[in-house]
Every structure is written in C-alpha cells, then in structure tokens.
C-alpha cells in the first residue's frame, strides 16, 4: 500500500496541471455565464440554467488520459510495475472525484445562498442533477468524474498498449457494436420500452448506480490491458 501511495505521487507531484487547468477553465466558464446572464434583462423563466459545469468534467477526463500517456513510460522506467501504477492511478482518480464532488457541493451551497450569484443563475444547481440530500449530491457530482475519467483512461491505455491504431480499432468496434445495437432496437421497435425502462429507473440509479458500474467495468478493462503494455 505504501508503494501505491508513493506511486500516486507521480500524479500529484506536478499538481499545477492536474488541478489548476480543470478548475481554471470551469471558473472562466462560470464568469462568462454570469456575464451573459447578467446582461440579459429578463431571461425566460426556467431558462437560467447552463451546461458550463460540464467543462470541468471534460477537462478533468483529458487530464486523466494525458496522465496515462505521460506518466506511464516514466513510471515503468523507474521500476514501478504496471499493476502498481494502475492501482495508484485509480486511487488518485477516485480520491479526486470525491474531493471534487465535495467542492462542487460547497459551490452548490454558495449558489443557493447567493440566489444564483445574485442573478438566479443555475450553474452548479443544474436541473435534474440537483438533489435534496447533501451526501447524495456529493455522489451525483463525483460519479460522472469516475465515469468519464475511467473511460478516458481506458482509451489512453488502449493507445499505450496498441498504439493509435488500437484506439481507432477500438472506436470502430464501439461504433459497430452500438450502431448494430441501435439498428436492432429500431428494427424491433424497442425504443419505447427502453425509454419506459429509463423513466422508471430511480434517479439514484441513473445518476450514480449505472455510471458507477460503467466506470468500474472501464477501470477493470484498463487494468487487464495495461498488464501487458510496454512503454
């Protein structure tokens, strides 16, 4: 375990890139949104929400992917095993997701307390993912980080293991599988049933349960692949 913590430092030693970029970009997005909504005299009711928060998730996923392609060859050169490197990477991403979840929850409270930064803006309290339970809200914020980051890590491991061709082949396979699935569903007229199933899912399952399951599968897949990868 100590070794894993030491290896986790590989991701955090140059914390500037790891932490600053995602939040800086989200901060800019927030500032721009405040400016835009403040300059609109009377926004239509219920139209004061924005998707600016997604920038934080996207940039954080990019950082996760880069951390694989950059740090893995260095870690291997320093005598770290692939397994330890991957476990350390997973640990960093899980801890980070929870910490970011807590931070976003605090920002959520600030937004609520200031009546949407004084202009009724819904930046952190995005409709549907705004739940009335502190702990659940933290999870709702945290799990999408796991979902996106582990998918990004999976793609990055694909490149480390098989090169760019591996990524393209993986993408092609995904399009083939999901495309055929879509065609099958359309052909059998199953969409209605699927929407029904989705709409009867509990909010917690949709926001936390299912994404967490996908994240776990991606994490396990990445682990299996990296064991035979060479820098």
């Amino acid at each position: 375990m100590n070794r894993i913590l030491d290896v986790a430092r590989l991701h955090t030693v140059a914390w500037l890139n790891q932490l600053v970029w995602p939040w800086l970009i989200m901060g800019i997005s927030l500032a721009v949104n405040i400016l835009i909504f403040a300059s609109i005299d009377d926004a239509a009711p219920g139209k004061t929400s924005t998707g600016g928060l997604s920038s934080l998730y996207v940039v954080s996923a990019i950082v996760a992917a880069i951390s694989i392609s950059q740090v893995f060859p260095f870690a291997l050169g320093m005598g770290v095993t692939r397994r330890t490197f991957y476990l350390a990477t997973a640990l960093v991403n899980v801890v980070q997701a929870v910490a970011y979840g807590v931070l976003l929850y605090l920002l959520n409270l600030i937004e609520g307390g200031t009546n949407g930064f004084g202009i009724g803006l819904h930046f952190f309290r995005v409709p549907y993912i705004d739940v009335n339970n502190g702990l659940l809200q933290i999870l709702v914020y945290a799990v999408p980080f796991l979902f996106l980051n582990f998918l990004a890590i999976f793609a990055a491991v694909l490149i480390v293991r098989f090169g760019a061709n591996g990524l393209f082949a993986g993408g092609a396979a995904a399009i083939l599988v999901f495309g055929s699935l879509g065609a099958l569903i359309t052909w059998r007229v199953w969409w209605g049933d699927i929407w029904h199933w989705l709409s009867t899912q509990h909010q917690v399952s949709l926001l936390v349960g299912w994404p967490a399951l996908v994240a776990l599968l991606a994490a396990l897949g990445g682990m299996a692949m990296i064991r035979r990868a060479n820098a």
Partner: protein
Amino acid sequence: MTVVAAAGLTKRFGDVTALDDVTFTLEENAIYGLLGRNGAGKTTLMQLITGQNSATSGTLTLFGEHPYENERALSHVAFIKESQKYPTSYKVRHVLSIAGRLFPNWDEDFAQSLVDDFNLPRKRDVRKLSRGMTSALGVTIGLASRAPLTFFDEPYLGLDAVARQLFYDRLLADYAENPRTVVLSTHLIDEVADLIEHVLLLDRGRLVLDARTEDLRGEVMDATGPADQVTELAAGHEVLHEERLGNVVRATLRGTFDNAERLRAKKLGIDLEPVSLQQAVVRLTMERKTAR
C-alpha cells in the same frame, strides 16, 4: 550471489531476432560492460531484465525471481536510459523527488551534490533541458538510487567529455563505498575500459564474449614480425585479423599467452603487445562477420 541469470534467452520482434539464445549471469558487486554495435540487442536485453518487455523463450531470473511485474525485484533495479521519457509537466526537482520515493536506497545528499556538480537547474521543466542536461539528470538518478543493480544504457551520450569524466569518477568513488552491480552499455569502450571488470559482448543478438576484462587483456594480442614467423606463432591461436606490409605482418591473435609463449614469440623476433579493449572488441566483432 547471482543477481541475474539468463539461459537460452531469446526475443523476437516479428521476424527480427533481437536476442538469440543468450546465456550468462551477472554477479553481485561488479561493474559490467555491455558492449556491442547499434542494434546488437543491448537495450532489448536490459528491457527484458528490467521487466519492460517479456522474452519470447528462455529463462531469466532477477534476484532469483521472475522480473516481469515483480515489484520486489524491480524496486532494486535502476534502469537509466537515453530514451527515458519524463512527464512534460515535471520540473527537475519533481523527477528527483519521485526517484527519492521510489528507490529504497536513495541518498538525497548524494543526489543534491550531483545536481550541483552537473549544474542542473532544479526548477527548470524537464522537457526544456538540453540533451546534456537530460543525460545528467539520468546519471544523477542512477547514481543516487544506489540500486543493487543499476543499468546505464548510454545515458551519457549527451554529456561532454568533462561531464562524462565526472560521471566515471563519481561512479567509481561511490562504487568503492557502496559496492553494487553496475552495467554500463556503451560505444565508448576505451573510456570505460578501466572501469569495467567484466565484458559482455553482443553481436546481432548473440553473446559472443563473456569474459573478465583482465583475462581478455592477456587473451587478445597483436603480434608484429616477419610473415613466416608470425604464421608459425599464429598456428596455436585464433587469428582475428591480419595486416601485411611488405614482409611484415601484424596479426591479432586470441588464445593463452603464458610466459613460455611470450618467450617463444621473442625468440621468433615477434613483437607481442596487448591490444586495447576497444580493439579487441572490434576485432572480435569483425572476425565473426567475416567468418560467415
């Protein structure tokens, strides 16, 4: 104690055989020279030993264990290579701080003194280092890690002559105080000739020489003298090379040259002198080529 044991080690990349049935051992507390031309398989061999790649066939143990994905064995190995990639967000001090955490025997004071010796800028981004500075950073990690098994895969290509001498001096001084197994892979054979105690020579994936440097020195000789006499002396030896200038022949011979043999050469009017390690290696490599 045996640090590395390889038997019948073979590595193929597609239809290219990078290592071909290589068998040798590395013993504790010795400095090895891993020599050979470009593409001879030196880096591949080191990659296999350090678990960066897996062998096609043959057996390999590192500290008595299989190296691939072996945390315990690998934490005792430092593999310093010219091609080492560093994360672009890292500064020099980040690399040193990470190395300090990962190598159990890391000596921070030694590392800092090397950083000063090589004038490494601690706060500079690693990707902005010159080639020489990148090499110096690698050398610093390799020395300060004090790993029981340390590989230097031509990490000093970017170093100028003064910095290389600094490296050799520091290595030798620290080796005397903290004996360990060091493998130097290099082209600059004459520069390291006084450093290395044992030579491993690879040629096109095959191990063509595995000998103590001292033994090798007495084993390969240049014999210069009249053609007939040199031919007579050469009869009992392996002729690696022969040059003729008029009636004078200079032959590079391999074999045992004991006192009786030296006396015999003297009586034949042959001048017998040991060749440099570099010459011996060149002759041994060339001889194999012409023998095919």
